């Protein structure tokens, strides 16, 4: 159940020009399922909306968020200093469930919910990005890195990586998060190959708690609220 949580910045780690990891101390234990997210805010009225972020990691009352600077909200978050206050609303959403022995795939920023999930379920994990990034060791987990241009790890996109790694003798399915086009392709791919799939979707949202219906969209013939019925959809 989503709660109002008042936390403080434990650490704000700048990874490169526009990526950072925000570590938030919430001073108590909170039940967080892998794949769940928080709406977060560290400013007064402007920007008007809180910002949704999946949990990148969580232990010992510290929640980590992996964030890319995109606009005003993320820029303000990137400048937060140790001990500054932050408001969290969550954890929200359903999260990944029963995904033991699944292959985990995070494309781009989609690695955020995948990282925490693969830690909890101890999953083999693919991290697919366009090009080499300077912060490849930003997680405690080990990733199989794939880059489109071959500047780090193996050369190819996330689907190439899945084709190489997925082994139906070892893996029971796939969990994934990433750009919409990749997920659309993956859904078709897994349907054809009869591979169980859990996908975490992203959608613009205002409240993150089911009040506003901003994030409601048609998924598998049903209209679902991504913030509550999602973000994870099982195929």
């Amino acid at each position, binding site marked *: 159940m989503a709660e*109002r949580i008042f936390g403080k910045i434990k650490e704000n780690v700048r990874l490169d020009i526009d990526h950072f990891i925000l570590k938030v101390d919430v001073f108590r234990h909170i039940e967080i399922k892998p794949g769940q997210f928080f709406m977060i805010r560290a400013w007064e*009225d402007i*920007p*008007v909306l809180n910002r949704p972020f999946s949990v990148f990691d969580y232990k010992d009352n510290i929640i980590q968020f992996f964030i890319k600077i995109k606009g005003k909200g993320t820029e303000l978050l990137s400048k937060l200093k140790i001990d500054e206050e932050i408001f969290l609303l969550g954890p929200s959403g359903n999260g990944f469930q029963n995904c033991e022995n699944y292959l985990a795939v995070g494309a781009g920023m989609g690695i955020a919910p995948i990282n925490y999930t693969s830690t909890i379920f101890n999953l083999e994990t693919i991290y697919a990005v366009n090009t080499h990034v300077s912060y490849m060791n930003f997680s405690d987990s080990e990733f199989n890195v794939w880059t489109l241009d071959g500047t780090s790890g193996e050369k190819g996109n996330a689907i190439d990586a899945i084709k190489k790694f997925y082994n139906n003798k070892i893996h029971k399915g796939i969990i994934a998060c990433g750009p919409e086009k990749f997920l659309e392709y993956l859904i078709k791919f897994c349907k054809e190959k009869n591979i169980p799939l859990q996908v975490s979707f992203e959608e613009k949202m*205002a*409240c993150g*708690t089911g*009040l*506003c219906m901003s*994030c409601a969209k048609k998924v598998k013939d049903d209209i679902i609220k991504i913030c509550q019925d999602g973000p994870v959809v099982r195929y």
Partner: protein
Amino acid sequence: MKNVFGKEICFSPEIKGIKFKNPILTASGTCGFGVELKDFFELSSIGGIVLKGTTLLPKDGNECPRIAEFNGGIVNSIGLQNPGINGFINDISPKLYNCNTNIITNISGNTIDEYQQMCEIIENEKVIDCIEINISCPNVKMGGISFGTDSNTVFELVSNCRAITSKPLIVKLTPNITDITKIALSAQKAGADAVTCINTFKGLLFDIEKNDFSLKNIVGGVSGPAIKPMALFAVYECAKVLDIPIIGVGGIMNFNDALEFLKVGASAVQIGTATFKDPANPAIIARLIEREWGKYD
């Protein structure tokens, strides 16, 4: 505490005999069907909950993106996604029994007949204390022009609903009009018990990076702090001419904003976008306004 017209502002306002324990309500479309807020505060701590806009038949709403943000507010185009009035009554209203606050259903229709049918269904529903009529919807029989922009249409719509329901009728006015007082007076003449000032402003945003409109529907309703001065103006103008109570809404982010609305002529206020900032905000504002009441005489 007196308003700018020298009239005493009542902490517990009344609309057609229905008493509100304090002047703080939620705004339609920002609090789901009220049930969702129970996780964050006791619903009984505020004067009333105005539910998500409801139509005669269920509606799927618009395609995403349905929301976009700018410096000072948001633009939304949800498209009235709702389970229909009967869906609400069967599945949701039992969860609102004994919530110990006023429940206000916000209704939308394509024709006057649809509004009337909804009023008829609501008349026997004990959970619903008041009806808020959304007149910003397109009138299908008038070629899609909003009901709320023509005073004769508003008169016809409100008097037809009045003929059917004994529950308090609140008319939610659109600001997308030259003179809001004409519409407000029409609503009053037709038997409205209160008006809500105001619904969202029409607006759009363009996303340069995507090279496309920010909303799939292109046009949406603008809300948030940016619209507060216009909302205050609408309340003030209506307060000059109306005898019925005015519920102020538009960009209220804190109790100070709420007091501004009460001072310029509102009897109660609705908290909308601020509920997205913190879902406990309606209750927080209600508590602060109770504490500060009388300090601004």
